[in-house]
């Protein structure tokens, strides 16, 4: 418990310090691009933190995760992954309850109990084998469900992409880990390290694709993060009309199609893709 309190105090301090620094650096960039840009008033600062995180990933996390994936046999890694996923399922169950999703909460509870007992502490995912599906929810999603807007985009050192809303949820979402149940500080550290490496190892393929696809990794990751979180809050059925949780009218929306919610863009696209390719082109 002491450990937890210390962790909390550290986080609170970090939040205060960060908001001071952010406040100092915040220069509202002119919105040049898509929806993500509008939600990123602290872009200059965020880019610095992002660069720091990238460095950390290149020199520490990725090598560690790669080594882990190469050295540790697949079945063992699967067991580790299942173990952490089981803990995450318990947190999902709580969040499903908080969001009033009875059926999903029930299934998550069944998952956790099944996997904890028959899956030997969560090492085997028996529940998936018998077809009980996972309903992943975290506290950031719960806040979103309760009507909190995402707010501005923030990149945290170590934790990476976030928004104001997800930052508020961050301490709780982080604390909801098996490490919470252990009192021994060193073991707790070890478990957290394993969790981080496991997560990173799961993402090795994805980050490779990301490196290939993104022109500017920062922008791509930001927009992807904002879209994905929004989609998660709506359980994959986010309404089209509005990109992100942005306030609808910005100064730049005067330019035709600039703020381009999907409708505007697709009508422009439809115009452009009408019979003769170059017809609607330059004046």
């Amino acid at each position: 418990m002491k450990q937890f309190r210390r962790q909390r105090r550290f986080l609170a301090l970090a939040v205060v310090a960060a908001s001071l620094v952010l406040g100092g650096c915040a220069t509202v960039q002119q919105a040049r691009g898509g929806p993500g840009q509008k939600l990123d008033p602290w872009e200059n600062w965020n880019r610095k933190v992002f660069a720091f995180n990238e460095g950390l990933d290149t020199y520490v996390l990725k090598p560690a995760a790669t080594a882990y994936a190469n050295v540790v046999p697949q079945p063992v890694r699967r067991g580790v992954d299942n173990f952490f996923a089981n803990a995450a399922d318990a947190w999902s169950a709580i969040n499903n309850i908080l969001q009033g999703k009875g059926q999903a909460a029930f299934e998550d509870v069944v998952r956790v109990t099944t996997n904890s007992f028959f899956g030997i502490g969560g090492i085997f995912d028996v529940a998936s084998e018998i077809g009980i599906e996972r309903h992943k929810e975290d506290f950031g999603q719960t806040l979103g469900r309760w009507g909190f807007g995402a707010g501005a985009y923030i990149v945290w050192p170590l934790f990476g992409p976030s928004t104001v809303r997800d930052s508020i949820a961050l301490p709780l979402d982080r604390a909801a880990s098996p490490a919470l149940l252990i009192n021994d500080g060193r073991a707790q550290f070890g478990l957290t390290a394993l969790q981080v490496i496991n997560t990173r190892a799961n993402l090795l393929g994805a980050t490779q694709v990301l490196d290939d696809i993104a022109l500017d990794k920062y922008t791509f990751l930001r927009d992807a993060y904002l879209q994905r979180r929004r989609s998660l809050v709506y359980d994959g059925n986010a309404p089209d009309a509005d990109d992100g949780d942005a306030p609808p009218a910005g100064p730049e929306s005067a330019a035709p199609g600039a703020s381009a919610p999907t409708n505007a863009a697709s009508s422009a696209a439809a115009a452009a893709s009408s019979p003769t390719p170059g017809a609607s082109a330059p004046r």
Partner: protein
Amino acid sequence: MLPNRTTAWRAWLTAAALGLSFSLAQAQATKAPDALIKEVSTDVLDSLRADKSIKQGDVQKVIALVDQKVMPHVDFQRMTSASVGRYWREATPEQQKQLQEQFKILLVRTYSGALAQVQDQTVELKPSRSNPDDKEVVIRTEVKGRGDPIQLDYRLEQTPNGWKIYDVNVLGVWLVQSYRSSFAQEIGANGVDGLIKKLTERNSRPAPAPAKG
């Protein structure tokens, strides 16, 4: 009398030809979009599994596969113009052509890189909310394998040549929307030619080797 009859004959022929091509188009268009997606994804996954050289990391093979099986069902022009956004109309036809070409290479390569990691996945359709007479639909699928299912959705539009994909959603992220910011940023800084240059540079890098999962 004679010229008249020829005209009538020609008119009839034209009508017949039109009717025929119309019904051909109809036949193609009548394949429901969800059936199309299911068919194409199953086809691609089966081909991937059947091919040993792909498992050994032959990305060129995957690229060829995507070109052959997936690209015919994609409205690439629409995808590109939507990603470029308002700048599309400011670009010259030549620039538009180059943008489209380079963007296509980038996407095919990336998509192929992702596909090369496919092992024992299957694709399942999820119920969609569209009406039968919609001209644009969203088809929702889930890729199931080990681990959590991956959300993979498609936006399709009905064209005279059947349904065409014009946007893809991976894990809640629409591709076109994601590119719009990156493209706008690059065009804002270096113009349309700057974006073309950047895409070309990106594409001239050697094809990525598949990562170890």
